[in-house]
C-alpha cells in the first residue's frame, strides 16, 4: 500500500478506534505510547523488508501538517482533551442525570473545579479529574455580577498567556471582582482599577464587558464563541507539552523553516495524495536512494 493510503488507514482506523473508550476513560500513557509505536512501525514498514530504518523521527509525524508533520495524533494528549470535554459538560450542563449523580457523590457543596482525587473514587472519575487539569488551563471567567470570581486566584482577564492579574496582591483588601464594579453605574470603578493594578492589567480590565444581571460564567478561552471543543483543547495540550519540553511553539517551526520549506504548500498542491506524500518525504530528506 502506498504511504498516502497508509496515512488514511492510520487516521481513519487505528487512531479512530480508541476514541470511544477515550471519551470516558484514561487509557494511560503506557498504552497510548504502545499504540503509537505500533502505528509508527506499521507506517514505516515496507512489504519487502521486515526491518526498516525510521527516516523521520517518530515524534515528527505527530506534528500538525503545517509544521511539517503528518498530523497523526498524539493519542494520550487527545485522550486528555476528550476527558476535558466530559469535565466541561459537567461544568456547563449540571442538570443532566449524570451531572446530578456525580455532583452528589463527589462535589455536593462545591463545583467540579475544586475537586481533587482521593481514595476510593472510581476509575472513570479519576480519569475525568485528569481531563479537568487540562480544562483549567483554558478556562476563563466572564464577568456578570462578579460575586463568584476571585480577583487574584481565578482566571478572568482575557489575554493570551496569563489570565490572572500580573499585579502582585500586596496588602490589597479586595478579593471579589464585584468589589471593582461601581454599583450605581454597573460599570468598572475606573479610579479603583487604575489605582489597584499595574497599567498592563488595568487597560485590559477596563475593556472587559460586564453583565450585572448574570452570575459569572465560565467559557473556553481558545474559542471565539467561548465554546469548548476537543480540537482546541488538543491544540492547547500540544502547546503545553512543547513548552514543558523547552521548545516553544515557534522553535519547532523555525527548525523546519531553515529548510525553506513551507509545509502548508505541499498539502495544498492539487496532485494525487501519493505525489504529495512523495514530496513530503523528499523535503524531509527521508527517501532511501542508495
Amino acid at each position, binding site marked *: 500500500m502506498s504511504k498516502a493510503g497508509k496515512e488514511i488507514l492510520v487516521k481513519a482506523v487505528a487512531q479512530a478506534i480508541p476514541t470511544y473508550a477515550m471519551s470516558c476513560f484514561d487509557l494511560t500513557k503506557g498504552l497510548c505510547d504502545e499504540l503509537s509505536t505500533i502505528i509508527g512501525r506499521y507506517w514505516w514498514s515496507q512489504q519487502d523488508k521486515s526491518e526498516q530504518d525510521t527516516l523521520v523521527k517518530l515524534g515528527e509525524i505527530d506534528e500538525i501538517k503545517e509544521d511539517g508533520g503528518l498530523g497523526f495524533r498524539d493519542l494520550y494528549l487527545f485522550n486528555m482533551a476528550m476527558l476535558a470535554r466530559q469535565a466541561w459538560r459537567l461544568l456547563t450542563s449540571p442538570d443532566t*442525570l449524570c451531572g446530578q449523580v*456525580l455532583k452528589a*457523590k463527589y462535589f455536593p457543596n462545591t463545583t467540579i473545579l475544586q475537586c481533587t482525587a482521593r481514595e476510593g473514587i472510581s476509575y472513570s472519575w479519576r480519569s475525568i479529574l485528569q481531563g479537568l487539569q487540562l480544562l483549567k488551563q483554558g478556562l476563563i471567567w466572564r464577568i456578570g455580577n462578579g460575586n463568584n470570581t476571585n480577583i487574584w486566584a481565578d482566571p478572568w482577564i482575557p489575554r493570551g498567556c496569563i489570565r490572572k492579574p500580573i499585579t502582585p496582591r500586596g496588602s490589597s483588601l479586595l478579593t471579589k471582582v464585584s468589589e471593582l464594579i461601581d454599583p450605581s453605574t454597573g460599570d468598572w470603578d475606573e479610579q479603583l482599577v487604575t489605582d489597584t493594578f499595574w497599567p498592563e492589567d488595568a487597560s485590559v480590565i477596563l475593556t472587559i464587558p460586564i453583565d450585572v444581571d448574570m452570575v459569572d460564567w465560565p467559557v473556553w478561552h481558545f474559542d471565539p464563541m467561548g465554546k469548548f471543543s476537543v480540537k482546541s483543547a488538543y491544540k492547547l495540550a500540544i502547546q503545553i507539552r512543547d513548552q514543558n519540553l523547552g521548545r516553544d511553539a515557534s522553535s519547532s517551526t523555525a527548525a523546519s523553516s531553515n529548510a525553506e520549506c513551507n509545509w502548508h504548500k505541499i498539502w495544498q498542491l492539487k496532485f494525487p495524495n501519493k505525489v504529495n506524500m512523495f514530496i513530503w518525504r523528499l523535503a524531509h530528506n527521508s527517501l532511501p536512494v542508495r
Partner: protein
Amino acid sequence: MNEALLAPFTGDEVWAALESIGDLKAPGADGMPSIFYKQFWQLLGERVKKEVLEVLNGGDMPQGWNDTIIVLIPKVKQPEKLKDLRPISLCNVLYKLVSKVLANRLKKILPDIISPSQSAFVPGRMITDNVLLAYELTHHINNRRRGAGGLAAIKLDMSKAYDRIEWPFLKKMMQKLGFQEKWIDLIMKCVTTVSYRIKVNGEYTDRFFPQRGLRHGDPLSPYLFILCAEGLSALLQQAESDGKIEGIKIRREAPRVNHLFFADDSLILMKARCSGAQALKQIMCKYELASGQVINKDKSFILFSPNTGDHAKQQKRLIMSINQEASAERYLGLPVSVGK
C-alpha cells in the same frame, strides 16, 4: 407542543431534510440517490416539494414511495444463521424526505417528554453520560462489601428490538404521551404503508407486507423506538414510586436511579430483594406482551454487590432466569468495571 408539531409544513423544511441526507447513501428501490435530487433541484424542486408537502399535509402515501429493500449485513465473519445477519432497510429518497421532516420536528420536543435515563437520540444528551453513570453505579455496587441489603445491576438485552415493535403499541404509546390524533395518523401512515423486498445475492424476493416492526434505515425509527422504550421506563418509575422496586442512591442527596437506557440497551439497578425481583419480572412480562419485545436471556447478565447473600442471589437468578453473573461484562461497548 402539538401546535408546533402540526404547524403547516413548508418547502424549506423539505429542502433542509434533503440537504441532511448524504449524497451517495445507498438508494432505495427506485435507485435514485439524494445527489440526483440535489443536482437537479432547480428542475425538480417545485414538483418534489409539492408532492412531499401533499403527503405531509394529509394526503395518502403514493404507491411505491414506501417500497423498501432489505439487505442483509453480516454481523460476523462467517454468517451461518439468520441471526448473524443484520437487516438494513433502504428507503426511497422521496419517502426519506417525508420521514426526515417529521423526525426533525419530533426531535425538538424529545428532551421534554423522554425521561432523563434515556440517553440515545435525544438532542443534548450523550452516550457517554450513560457510560459514566453506569460505571459510577457499578463501582458503587462493587464497593458495597458490608451491611445488609445487597445491590444488583441487571443488564437486559432485547433481541431484534426494532423489528419486534408492535404497531398498535406504538400508537397507544403516542396517545398516552399526549400527541394529537392527526400527528399520530401521520406517523402511522409512514410506519404502516411499508412493503418489503429482500435482496439476496443481487436478486430480489417477492414483495411482502409487514405487520409489525420499525425499519433500520428509516430516519424516524430511532425516535419512535425511544417513544416505545419510554413505556418500560414509565413502568419502572411507577414501580419505584409505589415502592415495589427500589433503585440505587449513591448518596443521600443523589437522585435515585433504577434504570438506564440507551435505546434498547438497558441496565436496571435495584436492591437485591426477592420482592423487587418479582416486581421486575412482572413488569418485564407486561412490557414484553404489550410491545412485542423479547429479552435475550443469553446476552443478559446480573451483577451483585459483594455483600449479597448466596441465597438471595440464587433466588433472584431463578426469578429472572438469567444465569450469567459476570463482572467482566460490557455495557454500551465499554467494560462496566475496570481496575484492581
